[in-house]
């Protein structure tokens, strides 16, 4: 597995994500325009999504990746220039078409292994370096098959790799990327949510609000 292929994949994923979000935003806007004024007034004001901020973040992320490649290859003649040429100048239209063709089941294959707090905790913990099964058991407070139940989907998805000699677990390049993008997505969506509607799942409901509802 080569870093350059991974970076290519990484960039594709980022671009896909960007295009998906852009398409969704456009759809929301179109929906809003289609609705009669009266109907619109009935609903809450949809949250405003600042697309320019989103674009800047993604561009910044891509620039960072590009810089990382340059640093890795610094001193290797003019290889960095060649890599840049090869990776960053794909036809935009082609990329967009590819992204639009991604079916839900393919998205699910990538996203569903991340769909559990325990698995995200494992990925987060492995970012510090490889860990043994025992260390993972201690960290997650899950033992034996209960931990395996969460580890296996991550291994199947290629996000975690197991060293067979000592039963050591490592987070792969894909795993790091998936976790980083999940964090980024969380951050962006939380920012876009109106503050008065967002509440931590375990946060107790305000007693006054509860009482008002009962009345």
């Amino acid at each position, binding site marked *: *597995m080569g*870093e*350059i292929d991974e970076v290519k994949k990484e960039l594709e994923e980022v671009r896909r994500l960007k295009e998906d979000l852009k398409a969704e935003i456009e759809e929301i806007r179109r929906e809003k325009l289609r609705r009669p004024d009266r109907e619109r007034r009935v609903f809450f004001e949809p949250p405003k999504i600042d697309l320019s901020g989103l674009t800047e973040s993604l561009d910044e992320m891509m620039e960072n990746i590009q810089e990382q490649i340059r640093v890795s290859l610094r001193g290797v*003649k003019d*290889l960095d220039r060649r890599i840049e040429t090869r990776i960053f100048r794909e036809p935009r239209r082609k990329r967009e078409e590819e992204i639009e063709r991604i079916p839900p089941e393919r998205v699910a294959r990538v996203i569903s292994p991340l769909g559990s707090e325990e698995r995200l905790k494992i990925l987060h913990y492995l970012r510090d370096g*490889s860990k043994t099964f025992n260390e993972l058991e201690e960290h997650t407070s899950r033992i034996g098959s209960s931990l395996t139940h969460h580890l296996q989907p991550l291994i199947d998805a290629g996000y975690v790799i197991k060293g*067979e*000699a000592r039963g050591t677990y490592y987070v792969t390049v*894909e795993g790091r990327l998936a976790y980083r993008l999940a964090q980024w997505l969380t951050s962006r969506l939380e920012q876009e949510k109106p503050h008065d509607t967002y509440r931590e799942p375990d946060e107790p409901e305000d007693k006054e609000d509860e009482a008002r509802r009962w009345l």
Partner: protein
Amino acid sequence: MARLEAGIEVKTTTKPLELLSSEKALVKIDARCLWTEVLEDQRKIGAVIHGPAEYIIDAIVDTREGAMGQSFKGEIKGFKLYLGGTNLEEASAIATQQDLQRLVFDNREAFITAANTALDRLLDSCSCKIEQTQEPQQGILMWEEEGRKRNAIFANRDNTGFIQRGKVFLASGKRNVYVSDGTVILSGRHGRELFVDKGMIVEPEVLRNLGPRVSDIVNSSLADLNWRFRHRL
């Protein structure tokens, strides 16, 4: 350097044994393997072993961007040469005629002759010199596979190495080398990392220098093992 030669006594393992062991490598030999000592100037420095063995190498490099590589598993059949520290003696008994015949040797002499032939073949164009006695489970294992002589696994406290047809892996502290199936990963002490994958580097100078660079790193690690291993990769 004095010629290495097989001993005169043949022993058989009475239980499975971990011949080589490090953080990233494990080599186990089965019970009922036949072996004889390897002597250099009458000094015991290893063993020629015949019988089933298996290895697992965690050829995984943990880079800043995530782990790359894979575990390699395999069987080592036939004769293999082990040079280094070992607990073989404690897990073995003198081989009986039955033990010898089980692995198709008519008698003790036939095994010693075959062991010496294997030793010569494996050490052809390669010289090894032991500077000091190794700890148990730390040393180098060499074997032939499909006519290729230069298959080797070496391990000590700080280094693990694996050289097999088309594959090279070395973990030596923060220095790592991984070469397999068109992928090359080099990482250095100061966090420098280089990744080369199929068709992605077209710079001939880089490719020309890769072999010597890999070779240098592997050889310097073998020097840490207190071995002199004059081999071209």
